[in-house]
């Protein structure tokens, strides 16, 4: 039996097609996946991402996270967020996450749902005595995304009597408003906010957002949006068998401070500077068909890698994919789809330029 988020009933009322995802019953779509996708690109949509894991850290957090994460939290000032990987001793990715610095000794991590247990185990294994780890429960997390997202979310806040100025939040910043938490972050390539609220207030917030004309959107649109934006998905594009540099997120390896000792620094630094055994590229299918996870990529008859994430891009009207290949190339390649080889070519990532807030 799947777990329900605080918004389960609201999804049912909105005719969601619910599916099990990482142990939770979540909307796949509310009628049209492509319609929801385009609503986010053109105006605003919102996602129930309450399945994601929120972990609060308190104490001497900075030196610990500087050791634990590939990115360097020393760059953060209060109220700022950073995207990072957390790697094992071999440099393989245990998870990718967002780390928020709330104050000097209070940090918040948002990690994936499917990796919750191993993430918590890893954190606890390395936890110094002067850090407390607490999983935040009974909380809903709603991502509001799109060029109109912040303006409309701000209006919903005002309607609910929450005095907040979301519009003047910088990108990748966070704000605490009583028990509410707002990060100007997201996973669609659009501007937007991610809002954590106590479970008891989740439905009221959801309804207020709906009243502002924000389109509820499901996991299906979330996947096509993040892939168009070139954002990696843990379990497909990122895994424990590959380093961040081999999976297209070398930028999360921060080697600026030569004295910072972090887990697997040696291999991660080498891969960042010189590349690893393989690399991530973006490709577009030339003809009709849909690129999907697991399909084999070939170059002049030789298999050179696989599609890690593929889909049909509603914005571009073609099929796009992130691939992991063992050699660099430019121009064309082939992908084996069912029993045929179809032509594709390398393209720049993101596949769709990241959007801005509408003034």
């Amino acid at each position, binding site marked *: 039996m799947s777990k329900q988020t605080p918004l389960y009933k609201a999804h049912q009322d909105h005719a969601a097609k619910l599916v099990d995802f990482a142990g939770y019953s979540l909307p796949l779509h509310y009628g*049209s*996946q*492509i319609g929801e996708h385009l609503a986010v690109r053109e105006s605003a949509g919102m996602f129930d991402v309450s399945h994601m894991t929120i972990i609060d850290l308190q104490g001497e957090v900075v030196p610990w996270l500087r050791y634990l994460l590939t990115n360097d939290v020393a760059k953060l000032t209060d109220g700022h967020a950073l995207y990072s990987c957390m790697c094992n001793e071999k440099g393989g990715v245990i998870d990718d996450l967002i780390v928020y610095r709330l104050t000097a000794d209070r940090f918040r991590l948002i990690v994936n749902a499917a990796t919750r247990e191993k993430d918590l185990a890893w954190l606890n294994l390395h936890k110094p005595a002067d850090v407390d780890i607490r999983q935040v429960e009974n909380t809903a997390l709603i991502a509001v995304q799109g060029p109109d997202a912040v303006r409309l979310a701000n209006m919903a806040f005002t309607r609910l009597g929450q005095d907040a100025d979301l519009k003047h939040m910088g990108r990748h910043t966070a704000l605490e408003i009583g028990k509410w938490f707002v990060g100007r972050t997201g996973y669609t390539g659009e501007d937007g906010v991610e809002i954590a609220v106590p479970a008891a207030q989740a439905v009221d917030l959801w309804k207020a957002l709906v009243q502002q004309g924000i389109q509820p959107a499901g996991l*299906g649109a979330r996947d096509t949006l993040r892939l168009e934006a070139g954002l990696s998905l843990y379990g497909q594009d990122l895994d424990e068998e590959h380093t961040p540099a081999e999976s297209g997120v070398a930028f999360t390896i921060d080697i600026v401070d030569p004295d910072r000792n972090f887990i697997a620094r040696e291999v991660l630094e080498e891969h960042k500077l010189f590349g690893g055994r393989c690399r991530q590229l973006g490709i577009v299918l030339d003809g*009709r*068909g*849909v690129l999907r996870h697991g399909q084999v990529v070939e170059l002049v008859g030789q298999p050179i890698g696989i599609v890690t994430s593929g889909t049909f891009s509603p914005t571009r009207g073609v099929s796009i994919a992130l691939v992991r290949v063992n050699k660099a190339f430019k121009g064309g390649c082939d992908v084996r789809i*069912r029993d045929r080889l179809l032509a594709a070519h390398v393209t720049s990532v993101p596949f769709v330029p990241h959007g801005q807030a509408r003034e």
Partner: protein
Amino acid sequence: MEIPGDLKFAPSHEWVRVEEDGSVTVGISDHAQEQLGDLVFVETPEVDRVCEAEEGIAVVESVKAASDIYAPVAGTIIDANVELAENPELVNSDPYGEGWLFKMQPDQVDDVDNLMDPDDYEAFIDSSE
């Protein structure tokens, strides 16, 4: 969910309509298109192709998944819906009308009688959920 009364249905969710000239038109059911979600690509069979019953002869792909379409009876393909190349969403918006996939001439039109009638198909969907 709509299940028109004049159609027959295969367990793999194709619908079949017998035309006055003895040919049959084939598409996928409203239930099937709903399960697949927004279609983005339809590969219809080539005209004159001869096929066995339950042979995979077409492919519909949604954002979510690719799905084979099977010939509901043995016969020869006599027409395919070329509109779907440009407008695959017709299968979602009008599965029993403009979203038809192909027409075939059955080897034996009586074979269609072995398929499910609408009531049986509805019960079949309910039992498989």
